[in-house]
């Protein structure tokens, strides 16, 4: 009759993108007459912040401030094809397409600026503050605003670009399963600490310490959102969630949030997140896709912590108080 504490660890990796590739995305970038940039996509923001991060990626590539970039998505009449937002592919695939489109647009912009300044385009760089100047001679400069006006109305150039990113599809070899599932993987290691009430089977998650390696934290605040939310969902998955609570009896399945249990704001574990960055060779500025991985390692870490606490293994999710209690009773009987 005690509260017993235990801790457990889990280490995982996760592939970025649709398994085996073959999932393209495209992007179109163009400048308005006054030097603001539009990124046209048919990609979907589920709340993970795709729109914001694509603006930052475009801005970084062209060399302007992110608030000069507007994202236009998703309309299949105007946006070029995107495979969709799933499989942790968004940042990687769409980001790479945006970089390609922005690079092409930037090149045209520099060529127009070069004509205006009577230099070579390769001598020019952006200053990140809305201007283009000669490398090493910042006084020889033109604003992006004036460059865009010149392109539209004087030089007859379209400051625009197209981007397409496709990992060629891989087909598993029939007998060996030789295949290329992904070009890059994110990593994680989670240590979870629990208190288990050996009288009721209830598990309280005391703390989770998550280490995530995600390639590059393109917007650290948004990364934090994703990783904290994911850690919560992992805990929920491990201990609470099921659509069939009385399986194999499929009656009394949850039909609302009263019956489908998830931890509420009063059930939160102390959560620590550490982020490592090993840039992916083919990631946009090295980014990998952490959106799914971040909800995985907590599950086995908790199962292992429960074993450490009370010496029972629950190899069947979710690890409910009932399952813990049955296991404890069997353990005592043995």
């Amino acid at each position, binding site marked *: 009759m005690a509260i017993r504490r235990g*801790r457990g*660890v*889990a*280490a995982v990796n996760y*592939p970025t993108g649709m*398994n085996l590739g073959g999932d393209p995305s495209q992007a179109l970038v163009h400048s308005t007459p006054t030097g603001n940039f539009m990124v046209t996509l*048919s*990609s*979907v923001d*589920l*709340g993970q*912040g795709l729109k914001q991060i694509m603006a930052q*990626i475009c801005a970084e590539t062209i060399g302007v*401030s992110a608030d000069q970039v507007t*994202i236009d998505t*998703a*309309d*299949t009449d105007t946006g070029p*094809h995107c495979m*969709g937002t799933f*499989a942790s592919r968004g940042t990687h695939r769409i980001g790479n397409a945006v970089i390609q489109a922005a690079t092409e647009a930037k090149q045209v912009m520099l060529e127009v600026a070069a004509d205006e300044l009577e230099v070579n385009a390769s001598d020019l760089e952006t200053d*990140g503050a809305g201007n283009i100047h000669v490398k090493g001679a910042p006084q020889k400069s033109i604003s992006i605003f004036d460059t865009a006006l010149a392109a539209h109305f004087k030089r007859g150039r379209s400051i625009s670009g197209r981007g397409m990113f496709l990992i060629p599809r891989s087909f*598993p070899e029939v*007998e060996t*399963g030789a*295949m*290329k599932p992904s070009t890059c*993987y994110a990593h994680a*290691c989670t240590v979870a600490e629990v208190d288990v009430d050996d009288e009721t089977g209830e598990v309280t998650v005391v703390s989770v310490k998550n*280490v*995530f390696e995600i390639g590059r*934290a393109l917007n650290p*605040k*948004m990364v*934090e959102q994703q*990783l904290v939310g994911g850690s919560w969902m992992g805990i929920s998955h491990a201990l609470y*969630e099921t*659509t*069939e609570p009385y399986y*194999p009896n*499929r009656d009394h*399945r*949850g*039909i*609302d949030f009263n019956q489908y249990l998830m931890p509420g704001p009063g059930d939160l574990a102390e959560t620590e*997140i*550490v982020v490592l*960055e*090993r*840039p992916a*060779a083919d990631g946009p500025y090295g980014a990998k896709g952490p959106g*799914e991985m971040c909800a*995985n390692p907590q*599950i*086995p870490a908790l*199962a*292992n912590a429960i074993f450490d606490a009370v010496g029972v293994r629950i*190899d*069947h*999710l979710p690890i409910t108080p009932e399952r813990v209690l049955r296991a404890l009773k069997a353990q005592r009987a043995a």
Partner: protein
Amino acid sequence: MMRLAKEYFADQRDDDLKQLGVGLQRSDVPGHVTGKTTYFADRNFPRMLHLKMVRSPHHHARIRSIDTSEAEKHPGVARVLTHKDVPHNVYTILILIQVGPEDEQVLAADKVRWKGEAVVAVLADSERAANEAAAKVKVDYEVLPAVFDMDEALAPGAPLVNEYHGNNYYTYDSGSHRKVRFGDVEQGFAQADFVLEETYRSSPIEQAPTETTGCIAVPEGNDRFTCYTNTQAMFFTLDNTSIILQMPGHKLHFVGGTVGGGFGGKVDVTVEPIAILAAKLTGRPVSFIYTREEEMQISSPRAAEKIVIKDGVMKDGRIVARYVKGYTDAGAYSRHSPYGAQKGAAHYPGPYTIPNVWADTYCVYTNRTPSSAMRGFGVTIADFALEVQMDKLARLISMDPLEFRFINAYRDGDMKAHRQPTEGAALIECMQEASKAANWPVAEKFLKMSSYKET
């Protein structure tokens, strides 16, 4: 709450980005906090019809007859649709990437294969009228035996769930399962100091986004239809709709991109085709939005899985053989499950370098709710099984669980079971940082390890 540990892999990065690596404010949140963000349902259209789906109350049944006459007469009802109205009623969403056969019905014709399957669509000018009329639809069912367990479904004599597959499993080009064969596991087991075989299981879980699945289809009066939708994949949904409605893709205009949570729950194609068909046949806008009850029990969950892992391990901590048999419960229809089961095969044996690996992954049909993508598809439950197994193995050989993982962790250049070289590995560094952050001491030699290839 979050710390960026820049000291790791510093030699692989130039931390000189200007607009990236910065916590800039999100451009969409001002809209969220003021209520100005437009989700698909934040629109009103005059003369809009509400679609209520009549669903099977049985897990498995033959349909003898469907009588919609009383429903059609109900005040406010504009139209009632059955399978006869659907141009291409039998479909499968992965046909777009040549993963067939077509095995699912938009509206049930002669059989239902899961409790909740769509049978009749009622269109009325109010939700109330649609619900009342739906209750007047009469379907005569002949109940059939059903199977809810993968082992039972795969046993001889089990009821056949889906005739389009001929068996209660998906047939890959490699047969009844996707195969990974690397080295010789039997030899590995023979040389191992210990062999451990364990079975892991999981229950289906719901994505449960706060916004339910749905769409509003609007006829534009020029043969085109605009569909406001919260799908996670615009063209994937549009192209499947084009096939189901036998309508050229350029007649379809999908608008979306702002979704109240997805988590994989909005990658099936269950609302747009029928809503657009209804808009076409009635000439009016049609709203089809899942109730919370439908979101919970009709929309596809994460599959239930069963995973058997058999490992051979040495006293010194090396895993020398890993054998995995993974079963994914697709429910009554394929949807994305053949892909998900295969993704599991690609994931084994986990981020560890093991010289002998054998993996078989099965996509199994039962009369449960069709499952589909959910955050971590094909991997989440595999990781549960793999990492609990790692814990058991460590304790079997009286080794610290974290140190045990260091011994087996993959590194750059190591050959994986699916015959790709490891690149960009970082498991070791994650574990090193976890050891520090969680105050879980490990031997010094592990803190000195590196994922980089030894030169």
